[in-house]
């Protein structure tokens, strides 16, 4: 009887958290619009939309060759996997599941519910996996070995997610499936290389999440730097609130993701001759950046809102904090975007960087009050407002 109850409350939690996530995703989309990936800052909006839709249009075109199709599918799957991993708390069930540990519930029941939640949490991913699976099977007259490979790949994906989300002691399952996957690959053709890259990317993501906690801990405790940092922090309440939030881990996460995506992009450089084909990958890069920067932005504001009532009781002038928030976010996002923009296009005009900076400043100044006063309600309407402001700004900038 209670099996269904437990699944039901987990589903309700998933639904609640997903609604909250949507707000963050929208913020990510918004910042993608600001970043204008892979195209000039004053290029029109249509170009941007075309770039965003590129992976989907490539997949749907009849004349797309197999390798392109495979790369785009893999790209979408990797992006969605990162997205799903970000929804970990929604899938895992939050803090109430800790309390449930004290109740007489069979471990097998918990695992079954966890697996069901994981499968459900992957709802965005399943169409692509199934499409990929059947495409390879139908187009290439698959041998039984190929079918085994593909099954291994899907199992690898699911076991990776399970290990990352629920149980690190299930590392053995991951290792067995991972090794099985790699050993069944014979690198005879180019598309095998792509699939191998994809497998390694999954493993890379796994290692990243596995190490994240420990490395973040180390990063926070290199003794001298840490002490110096603490001294500076102890003198400034604003910096305390900023850095005692999840900034350190966010930045670390960001840098690892950037590293992975750089590797991915280099791999694409190596295999794809025409650079214009790389736009979707830069877009992915930018989307991930945008996602993490938006998360950082949200975490600062959440932190601030949680402490608001207490902060007003302190003899601290808070008038300029919003300005500082904008400055910090603009600085980080501009640096990141500047780096990738120049790196991607090989341009080095200082004026362009300044242009990007001003562009960010204008947009963030516009969105900050909306973010603070309106988006907290997490309604769809606020996204529409942001979207319109962004669109208008993009059309009106020189």
């Amino acid at each position: 009887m209670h099996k269904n109850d437990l699944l039901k409350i987990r589903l309700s939690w998933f639904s609640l958290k997903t609604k909250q996530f949507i707000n963050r995703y929208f913020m990510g989309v918004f910042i993608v619009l600001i970043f204008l990936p892979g195209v000039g800052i004053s290029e029109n909006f249509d170009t941007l939309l075309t770039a965003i839709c590129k992976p989907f249009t490539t997949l749907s075109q009849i004349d797309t060759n197999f390798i392109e199709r495979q790369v785009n599918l893999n790209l979408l799957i990797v992006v969605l996997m990162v997205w799903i991993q970000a929804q970990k708390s929604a899938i895992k069930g939050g803090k109430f599941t800790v309390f449930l540990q004290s109740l007489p519930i069979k471990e097998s029941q918990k695992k079954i519910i966890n697996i069901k939640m994981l499968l459900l949490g992957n709802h965005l991913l399943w169409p692509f996996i199934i499409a990929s699976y059947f495409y390879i099977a139908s187009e290439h007259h698959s041998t039984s070995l190929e079918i085994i490979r593909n099954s291994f790949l899907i199992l690898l994906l699911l076991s990776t997610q399970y290990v990352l989300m629920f149980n690190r002691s299930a590392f053995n399952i991951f290792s067995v499936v991972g090794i099985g996957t790699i050993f069944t690959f014979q690198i005879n053709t180019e598309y095998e290389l792509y699939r191998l890259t994809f497998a390694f990317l999954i493993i890379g993501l796994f290692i990243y999440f596995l190490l994240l906690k420990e490395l973040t801990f180390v990063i926070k405790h290199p003794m001298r730097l840490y002490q110096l940092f603490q001294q500076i922090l102890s003198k400034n309440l604003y910096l305390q609130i900023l850095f005692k939030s999840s900034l350190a881990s966010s930045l670390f996460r960001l840098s690892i993701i950037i590293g992975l995506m750089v590797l991915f992009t280099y791999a694409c450089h190596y295999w794809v001759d025409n650079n214009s084909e790389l736009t979707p990958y830069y877009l992915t890069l930018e989307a991930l950046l945008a996602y993490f920067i938006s998360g950082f932005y949200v975490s600062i504001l959440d932190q601030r809102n949680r402490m608001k009532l207490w902060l007003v009781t302190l003899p601290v002038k808070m008038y300029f904090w919003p300005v500082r928030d904008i400055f910090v976010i603009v600085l980080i996002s501009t640096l990141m975007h500047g780096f990738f923009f120049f790196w991607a296009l090989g341009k080095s005009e200082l004026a362009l960087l300044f242009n990007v900076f001003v562009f960010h400043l204008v947009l963030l100044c516009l969105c900050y009050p909306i973010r603070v006063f309106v988006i907290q309600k997490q309604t769809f309407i606020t996204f529409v407002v942001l979207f319109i402001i962004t669109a208008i700004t993009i059309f009106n900038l020189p």
Partner: protein
Amino acid sequence: MKNIKIKNLNIQYQDLIVLQNFNASFGKGIHWIQGLNGSGKSSLLKSLCGIVPVTNNVVSIMGYDLNTQAIKAKSQLCFVADKPEVYPFMSGIGFLKLLARIKGVKLSDELFKFMDAINLTPYKDINFSEMSFGTRRKFTLCSVFIGNPQVILLDEPFNGLDKTTTELFRLWLLKARNEKCLLIVSHDTHMLDNIHKNIIVLDD
């Protein structure tokens, strides 16, 4: 038979050793755990109910090993955490019904009487997200009436409670101590004045 037996319990968070080779056994009655902040009081309770994992043959509840006979052991206990972390969309009565279904029992008359006495009945259909901290605490405290647990672990049970509820719950503790094992972590020293209790002090 002792309700709780602990043999060589070790609790460690990364490099921080919280409890090392801790041995104890608790029978019926009130056992009041004291200690400084960070001395491992809450961690001890969490290890006794399975939230902090323990190895085999370290903790037994009513003769059942917490690890190998987890279902039987956990059926005999009730844990009330210091912070009520319940899903925001769950109603008060929904939370209690869920606990009852997990334990395979029905909500008792004693529970409903207690809810009436502490003025909780009007809030039973309200979601946890809309309750005050005190009301949320009251609902989680009511879980002690579900399934007749023989071992009750209470982490700061008096936090956030109004005067009437505190007094009524204190009276219930007095009554329950004759048939149950009650492990209480609390800094409110005056709450347990004039009550015969076993005091356990956890040192650094």
